[in-house]
């Protein structure tokens, strides 16, 4: 039996609306809940003072610095490698056995739980290579973890650049490298940037891989070989060991605000870029 088309439309609309509303509600609920619990402890000294007494008192300055250091290191390492791989796979090799194997490998890498990356980083960087619990070990581990995302989104972005753009560049005497850097990459940049932004979010939020490799020192890091805790790890320890729930929520609030701010800034920049190039 077939429904009356008008009724069908009405029901579809109502159901889809409900799903969307539910999703948005959960998102808004989480953000508001964390902000409500966390905002009261936020003030300038919370952001600028180091934790005291295991985090019971004081602020979260050193975890903020630790997060920044680890995330930037991971992004700085993974972005060139990831984009390079994506360019190689889409522009420099014909689709075949080799590309399928590489792609399969990178997809498997994407499916590995982060705690396994943590274990791997611990064994390789912390003990075998002797970097110890450090920003270096943590950054390298995070870089491995986000690499598949950057490769995957990069590849898709490059693939979505119309073939005709490449033809124009080649037909005007462009070399392969010129075609890639002057025509393909600028057109693919918004897509590539999306992958990098997603990866920034994942790095900031990552706990398991970091706890194994960067440790959880509360001191302000002074070099790449210093151990440091990130905000996520700080939050985990404060909450897990019942040290201070208010400070844990304060940390969570800062985390959420930071991630939102990064997303807004990135999309703003991207829109300006797209306007210039189209």
């Amino acid at each position, binding site marked *: 039996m077939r429904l009356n088309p008008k009724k069908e439309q009405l029901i579809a609309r109502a159901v889809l609306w409900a799903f969307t509303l539910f999703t948005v509600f959960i998102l808004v609920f989480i953000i508001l809940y964390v902000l409500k619990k966390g905002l009261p402890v936020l003030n300038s000294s919370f952001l600028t003072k180091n934790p005291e007494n295991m985090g019971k008192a004081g602020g979260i300055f050193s975890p903020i610095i630790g997060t920044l250091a680890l995330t930037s290191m991971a992004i700085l390492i993974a972005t060139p490698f990831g984009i390079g791989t994506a360019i190689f796979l889409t522009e420099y090799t014909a689709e075949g056995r080799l590309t399928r194997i590489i792609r399969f490998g990178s997809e498997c890498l994407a499916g590995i739980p982060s705690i396994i990356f943590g274990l791997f980083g611990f064994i390789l960087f912390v003990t075998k290579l002797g970097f110890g619990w450090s920003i270096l070990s943590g950054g390298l581990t995070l870089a491995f973890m986000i690499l598949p995302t950057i490769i995957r989104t990069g590849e898709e972005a490059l693939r979505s650049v119309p073939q005709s*753009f490449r*033809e124009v560049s*080649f*037909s*005007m*005497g462009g*070399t392969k490298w010129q075609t890639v850097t*002057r025509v393909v990459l600028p*057109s693919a940049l918004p897509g590539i940037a999306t992958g990098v932004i997603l990866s920034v979010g994942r790095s900031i939020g990552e706990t398991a891989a970091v706890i194994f490799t960067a440790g959880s020192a509360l001191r302000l890091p002074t070099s790449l070989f210093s151990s440091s805790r990130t905000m996520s790890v700080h939050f985990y320890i404060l909450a897990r060991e019942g040290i201070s729930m208010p400070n844990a929520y304060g940390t969570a609030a800062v985390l959420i605000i930071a991630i939102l701010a990064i997303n807004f800034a990135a999309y703003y920049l991207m829109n300006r870029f797209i306007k210039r190039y189209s």
Partner: protein
Amino acid sequence: MAVVRAKGFSHYFGATQTLNKISIEINEGEILGIIGPAGSGKSTFLRALNRLNDLVPGSRVEGLLEVQGRDIYAPETSVVELRRKLGMVFATPVPLPRSIYENIAFGARLAGVRNKQQLDDLVEDSLVKTALWEEVKDRLEQSATKLSGGQQQRLCLARILALQPDFILLDEPSSGLDPVSTMKIEESLRQLKKDYTIVLVTNNTKQAARVTDRTAFFLTGELVEVGETGAMFTAPSDSRTNDYISGRFG
């Protein structure tokens, strides 16, 4: 004088033969039209001239294809230089997503020209030659993708002229354009004939009759006949040509 000479030239995509022993000469300063139904190999032949077929994996050639006396499939050929000499306009206008100015200057920038004055002159000169200058001179910084279809195609032609090529290859340049835009492109071609050798692939036989000096008729990868356009359209020597231009098939 013949500036392009094909002798028993064949082309394959993998196991599929797309051109079968083509032998043809193209003279300096003429407009050669290539007509034929879809799949006749006319675009493949055009793309063989600037080696754009090389982009497709499995592309392979046999026989001889000379441009200005040099075998362009010889190993020592510089493909980059060859392509700058044979500018190509595609069926659908493909403005790159950047400003009008940057589209025209693109080829010069690829070749490493940085001098602003030189680029400015090149852009103006190319736009004047395609009768686009008056329409766009006040908005050169605007995105080229915002131009109308006809303007975009003339922009693509201007972009090619900025390469200062010897040949202009056109692959059905007006297949997506309205009659007025088509007329403007054809007018430009007549003007450009003075300085360039032009090869025009078209599936519009009337267009071939209007603008070309000589016409070649391709069918299933073979060159059926080539001759003076006037003679070919009044008294073709092959009955298949007659069937095609009188609209009996294709």
